[in-house]
């Protein structure tokens, strides 16, 4: 029970590590470049250390949420599918990946009627095409498909 990790403890340790990495990384830079970030790191350490100490004091510790690694099934699907979507866009192409992504997520979340799925997907793709590619001349990745 005593060693059950609290989120605040973990985040305070991570932030202290971040501060140390940033402090060391800027070490070789000229003084004019490094003084400002180093002052910010020192300022940052004050509340972070308070958070860390507070997360160890039993009186406060009891009220803090435990570190949880469990995720809602739908959220997990959404995170993973978005990550795959982002990674596939440059390889496969923006429009084809977006078509598969929107259709897939809609079906997973409970859409069953094709006359809703198809117009929404195509409508979004047409909107993005006109707004971004035609009007703003932003070239979206073509990949090996389109």
């Amino acid at each position, binding site marked *: 029970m005593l060693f059950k990790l609290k989120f605040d403890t973990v985040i305070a340790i991570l932030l202290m590590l971040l501060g140390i990495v940033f402090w060391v990384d800027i070490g070789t830079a000229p003084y004019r470049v490094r003084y400002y970030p180093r002052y910010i790191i020192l*300022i940052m350490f004050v509340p972070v250390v308070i958070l860390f100490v507070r997360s160890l004091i039993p009186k406060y510790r009891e009220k803090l949420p435990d570190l949880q690694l469990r995720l809602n099934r739908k*959220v997990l699907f959404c995170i993973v599918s978005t990550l795959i979507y982002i990674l596939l866009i440059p390889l496969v192409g923006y429009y084809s990946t977006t078509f598969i992504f929107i259709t897939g997520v809609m079906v997973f979340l409970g859409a069953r009627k094709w006359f809703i799925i198809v117009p929404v997907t195509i409508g979004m793709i047409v909107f*993005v095409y006109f707004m971004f590619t035609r009007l703003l001349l932003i070239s979206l990745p073509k990949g090996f498909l389109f």
Partner: protein
Amino acid sequence: MLDLILQGFLHAMQIENVLAMVFGTLIGILFGALPGFTATMGVAVFIPFSFWMSPSAALLLISGVYCGAIYGGSISAVLIGIPGTPASVPTTFDGFVMTKRGEAGKALGLVTYASAVGGFLSALALLLGAPMLATFALKFGPPEQITLSLFGLSVVCMLTAENLLKGLIVGAVSLLLATVGQDPMEGYPRYTFGMIGLIGGLPLVPVLIGLFSLPEVFNILESELHKSEIPKIGSMRVGIWEALHYWKLTLKSSLIGIFIGIIPAAGPDIAAFISYNEAMRSSKNRNLFGKGNPEGLIASEAANNGVTGGSLIPLLTLSIPGSAPAAVFLGALFIHGLRPGPTLFTKNADIVYALLVGFALINILMYFLGIGFCKLAISVVKAPRYILVPLIITLTVVGSYAVQQTFFDVGVMFTAGLVGWIMQKNGFPPSPVALGLILGPLLEQGVDMSLVMFNNNLLKIFTRPLAVLFIIFTILSLAWPYFAKKLTPKMEIAHNGEEEGS
């Protein structure tokens, strides 16, 4: 002067100019409402379109895009909790809560009203007081930049009063993250860890998109909504009595916006935060801020639209842009052969007064076009989540890609989204991130330049009256929550005593 204004009005009312205003405002609203598109991008994109137009029509088109985009950012902020532009971040705090509560219509009505009034008042300031107000911009140097940034950062204390320690941590970490990329004086790359995408710094817009959009998407997925629980929309009408009820707040927030707009390098995002903070400090309903308080919406929107006209004051009179979109606007002026400065008002009076009067007309027009646009956009709230979720994610991906056309930014957006969600789940407020990333570079630049200016003696800041004024504001802002806590019970006792007595 009156005859010049009348001439300007007649010039602005020519059919080509009216069409330019309508088209510009509409497209600006659409741009602003899309996550990832800032007013600066909107103005920049439409400058080439204005080549073939007459100078007055071109400037009115760009003004329409500018005003429309600043306002449009509030629509997505209210409806889906994603700020369309960084200036609408404070609008999400109360706007989205109102939408969840079934008051999306009222929230949209209020932001449209506040935006139009803020923009209109700034246009009046531009029209009537430009040369006089412009001298203020000249008094604003690096020391004032430092104290303004500190004043802006003090907003963190107000915004996160319920969880101050975590708010301060998020603010400090964000200030540190704002130092990523080339330093402002020597261009030395810091904390890039070999990533080319970080040389220009952590991209602000993708971070904000991720931070405010993905956690909302995950929240939608986690909540098991039933059909009957789909929030109502409510009326969008803002009655005269309601408008009069908020007139003081609207006026004060608009003036804050105009004031911040005049200051070089401070834009609508900073104005919105400072105004939100001031509204919160002075409100009797302080505890309701962030919980769907209409005052929060009005403060943020009147101020960010107040910047539009304010930022053009130093631009037209001194060639100093008061915000990033105003800097792009400067390019449009040069392209059409107009040289900003005192002579602009005499040499090109016909074009300039058409622009100034047109700016006021655009803000009136924006109210009606905005209400029409909101009536279409509001259907988003009714959309089932199996439609909403993939469309929001698609928009956030393409929006963050569009900023610099690099997938690195999409990765940053996704990471910011996940971090934002974890933060939200564990009581770390996301709003200080926006403040830290917006104000951090301004603060560092101010410190660097002041050190050079004052021979490494920063204490000389206290010799500058305007800087001292901002320091006093900062101290008041920091100390106010404690004073307020001490004063409230006494005031309540006194108030109750009076009621019992009567």
